[in-house]
């Protein structure tokens, strides 16, 4: 039963790529958790930038530079409003979540010492594990893991036991990319703050489905990537509380991030420029803004509601397939289904689905610790977006059945 108020057929027309065929089959794109597709409005914003006002920003006296600067800074304001940050300069443009996390991790190298501890959840993406491991190597601090249960929920009582006065940082994704679990970040943040630890929430997987209010959450850092929310690749953001951003040293040196330079001493530019060395991805930022507008025009509430319908329908359809097991059955999850069928290798099923034009992700999803937890080589992951249809869910189910028949 479809209850959505969204006109999916009309929305789909906004995405030219959804018209294409793959190996002669209509494309069924179910890899949205890796990269979402791009609506015409966003493509137009890119074309418009390069056709009418391509210029370097912040330093030109000429009209084009001024227009580009305005457009770029407007997006900062949009992001500030969207995530309800307190100040414009608390929004830093980065190349994406990985860059955002590395920026913070690198900054903490001068703050942490060997007695300190860092907590990270068991369901992190490698990009939210490796930078902290590197930070621990550099500082001697210890990395501790918040465990999860079989369904993919974090063990909050274990989390509380792990927290103490030496815990300086807690890192957790808002939504797990491999399992779709929506983590109880409010509780995570509050408990971390109670022992004086700072919190970074990786919002890469959440931002296309949930609007995080960074002030209400009182989170110290929050990250997002445009390419998972209808925007282009290579652009994302870091929200950081002003006090933290002032405390952290610059991540990269270069133009744009300086106030004054001599060979004796350089003084850094004020926020946010301190963290935006060099010519930024101007066009990407502008297109990020267009993507944000596009999604807000549809409405995140309507998107979340429809995606939940898709998730429920897909879960019911897939569970009818004999031997199919879903990994990640947390109480709250986004429209992601990670699964395997019997002992079949995810790669085999993914390859055959691909031949039928159905794009899914197979493998460990850059979250090997999760696969080790379940003792599996990987999973097949179907991740749905608001432009996917119930018919596509049916095609996925039929495709899996066909693959299973071929492989048996």
């Amino acid at each position, binding site marked *: 039963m479809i209850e959505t108020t969204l006109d999916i057929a009309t929305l789909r027309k906004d995405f030219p790529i959804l018209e294409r065929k793959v190996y002669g089959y209509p494309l069924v794109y179910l890899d949205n958790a890796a990269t979402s597709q791009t609506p015409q409005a966003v493509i137009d914003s890119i074309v418009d930038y390069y056709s009418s006002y391509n210029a370097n920003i912040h330093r030109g006296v000429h009209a084009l530079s001024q227009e580009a600067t305005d457009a770029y800074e407007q997006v900062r304001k949009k992001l500030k409003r969207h995530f309800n940050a307190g100040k414009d300069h608390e929004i830093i443009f980065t190349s994406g979540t990985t860059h955002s996390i590395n920026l913070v991790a690198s900054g903490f190298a001068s703050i942490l010492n060997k007695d300190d501890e860092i907590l990270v959840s068991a369901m992190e993406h490698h990009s939210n594990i490796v930078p902290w491991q590197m930070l621990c190597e550099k500082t001697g601090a210890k990395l501790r893991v918040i465990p999860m249960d079989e369904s993919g929920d974090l063990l909050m009582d274990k989390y509380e036991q792990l927290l103490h006065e030496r815990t300086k940082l807690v890192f957790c994704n808002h939504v797990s990319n491999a399992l779709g679990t929506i983590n109880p970040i409010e509780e995570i943040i509050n408990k971390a703050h109670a022992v004086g630890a700072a919190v970074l929430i990786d919002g890469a997987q959440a931002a296309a489905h949930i609007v995080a209010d960074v002030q209400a959450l009182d989170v110290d850092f929050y990250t997002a990537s445009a390419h998972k929310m209808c925007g282009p690749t290579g652009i994302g953001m870091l929200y950081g509380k002003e006090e933290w951003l002032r405390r952290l040293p610059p991540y990269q040196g270069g133009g744009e991030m300086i106030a004054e330079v001599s060979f004796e001493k350089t003084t850094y530019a004020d926020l946010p420029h301190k963290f935006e060395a060099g010519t930024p991805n101007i066009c990407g930022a502008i297109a990020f803004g267009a993507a944000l507008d596009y999604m807000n025009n549809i409405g995140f509430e309507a998107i979340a509601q429809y995606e939940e319908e898709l998730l429920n329908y897909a879960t019911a359809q897939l569970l009818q397939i004999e031997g199919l097991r879903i990994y990640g059955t947390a109480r709250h999850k986004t429209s992601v289904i990670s699964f395997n069928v019997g002992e079949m290798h995810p790669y085999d099923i993914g390859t055959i689905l691909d031949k039928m034009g159905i794009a899914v992700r197979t493998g460990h999803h850059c979250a090997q610790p999760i696969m080790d937890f379940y003792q599996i*080589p990987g999973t097949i992951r179907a991740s749905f977006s608001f432009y996917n249809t119930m018919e596509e869910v049916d095609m996925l189910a039929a495709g899996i059945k066909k693959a299973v028949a071929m*492989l048996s």
Partner: protein
Amino acid sequence: MTIQEIQEEIVDEFSMFDDWMQRYEYMIELGKSLPLIEEQYKKDDNIIKGCQSKVWVHAELEGDKLSFTADSDAIITKGIIAILIRAFSGQKPQDIINADTGFIDEIGLKEHLSPTRANGLVSMIKQLKLYAVAYQTQLN
């Protein structure tokens, strides 16, 4: 038969199929005829890196010819390695080193040739050739 002749034979077999589904079914079938690696060689050292599925390959010199055994935890990967081994096994190392592998393209598996492809067909070919290079050095 020379490597070239075996490859032509494989291309012939695949040319009978009209669509991808039949090709894949045949490949899965071929995977079942793969000369399986002995358990003792199924260790991490023999895993080919760069594959999403696990592929183990072992090579042995029999006289002046190389013979390969292999296994994989994925069926399609097993089929792909079976095709390669059929072409290379029982051949002289120098001939394996010199062999062209363009026939993969001709049997409609072109998409697996991209170096970024998760199954690592390119890595498999490279590994088989590396074995040949190693044994060729031994023969010299």
